[in-house]
């Protein structure tokens, strides 16, 4: 297999990462009709409960938006799921490694 066809994704550059973080924050704010600007979301704040104050219906909505936008199907049957939604940064990390579009 040549290098060109390698299925392993190259690590994203910090600039790409920041752009994706802004984009995902924008998707969350729009999908959930939140009263905050996307750039106001602290990337390390929890998304669930206390932090941004989201609940399981919101998490489902985000999961659907993320699957449409990036082709990532989320699953709840692992410890991983708690980590994915522990912060915007963790969600973006997950999208980077699992996106199919």
């Amino acid at each position, binding site marked *: 297999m040549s290098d060109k066809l390698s299925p392993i994704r190259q690590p994203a550059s910090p600039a790409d990462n920041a752009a994706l973080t802004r984009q995902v924050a924008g998707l969350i704010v729009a999908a959930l009709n939140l009263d905050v600007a996307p750039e106001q979301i602290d990337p390390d704040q929890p998304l669930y409960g206390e932090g941004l104050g989201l609940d399981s219906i919101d998490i489902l909505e985000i999961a*659907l938006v993320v699957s449409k936008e990036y082709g990532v199907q989320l699953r*709840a*049957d692992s410890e991983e799921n708690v980590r994915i939604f522990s912060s915007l940064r963790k969600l973006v990390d997950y999208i980077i490694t699992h996106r199919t579009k």
Partner: protein
Amino acid sequence: MLAYRGGEPISAAQFLADVHRLAPLLGAGRHVLNACADRYHFLVGFAACLASGKVNLLPPTHTPEVLRQLRRFAPDAICLTDDPQGAPPLPCVPFPRNIAPLLPVMNVPQLETDRLAAYVFTSGSTGTPVAHPKTWGRLVDCVSQEVVQLGLDANVAATLVATVPPQHMYGFESSVLLPLVGGMVLCAERPFYPADIAAVLASVPRPRVLVSTPVHLRALLAASISLPSLRLIVCSTAPLPQQLATEVEERFEAQLLEIYGSTETGQIAVRRPTTTAEWRLWSGVHLEARGSETWAQNGHIEQPTRLCDVLELTGEGRFLLHGRVADLVNIAGKRSSLAYLNHQLNSIAGVQDGAFFHVEDTRSSHTGVTRLAACVVAPQLDAARLLAALRERIDPVFLPRPLLFVARLPRNSTGKLPQEALRSLAAGKSKPARAG
């Protein structure tokens, strides 16, 4: 066989052994908050309570305020949980981790029909939850009717996968009692994401029944995911638009039946929304129009109950549903009333006046859930502190979005607060600037 977990069967003999082992661990008190998330654990807890003369407590939510009221209602209450870290602050009995040894002789407990099996709670309008007793015989009567009305053949043991929690009245009846009474096999899992629902369905044999809600069915459609073949889809908790019902039947090639009920009455009617708007009542249940109200009684219903919906009786045992009484709130299957939520909001120190109201939502949401908004006069509080105080008192699904701080509420000359005036006030408030 009685249940599946992770695709692995659990036998009826194992179930009896698990019940026998758990019952003495529940202590001497009479009330058990059955908080098990795993549906099989919940069923074992429920049966262990019945077998030892205890009552299951099924509150709609576990906020600190509701738990305080629950302790007042039943000071001896303990909590049975399979998540000791996340358990509410009550004396806790963790669900045993290891498998109970099988019993030498299978002894199925015999239960009197008037045995008190559970208390379910509605929020009431004055801040105090109302407890509704459910007796074993009437629960069985209700669910036996459901078996008939859903056209489920007791000789063909269908496997039942549910996306709803076992503690919610609909989930309690249709995902715990229905398999128990109707000879079906229940799945311990409660799949959440569309991919999870597909995976759990694929892990069990046909025929399969999916017990779900409009929120999850919308999510399944939006996820463009394919499901294993289904015998039947059951839906409840909120009205299902006919268009959505048609899409669900076409995509998943299964009949979709919708159930109507309430915490007070249990389930009382069924319809297939793709063929008729008319609901068919459980046989034995009687509806009566009293002025603009509709009351349900007889059959499995414990006592005559005013329904919280506007109904039109169209014939013997048939009716149409014309929406909810204005004060009532139903968000993703959780029910409350504006009066109750307003009472909680105005009980917070620093809140001078405040009101919840319904808003139009024009966004294209995948789950189709619209939240409430609230206006509040609270000059000493900020949004974070007020929301934290509300979170102590009400289920997070009812937290206002948006929460607007105003100088005063648009009360009319009689002190009343028209919903329309609140909506105009909200529309006039500009939203924070948004980037991107």
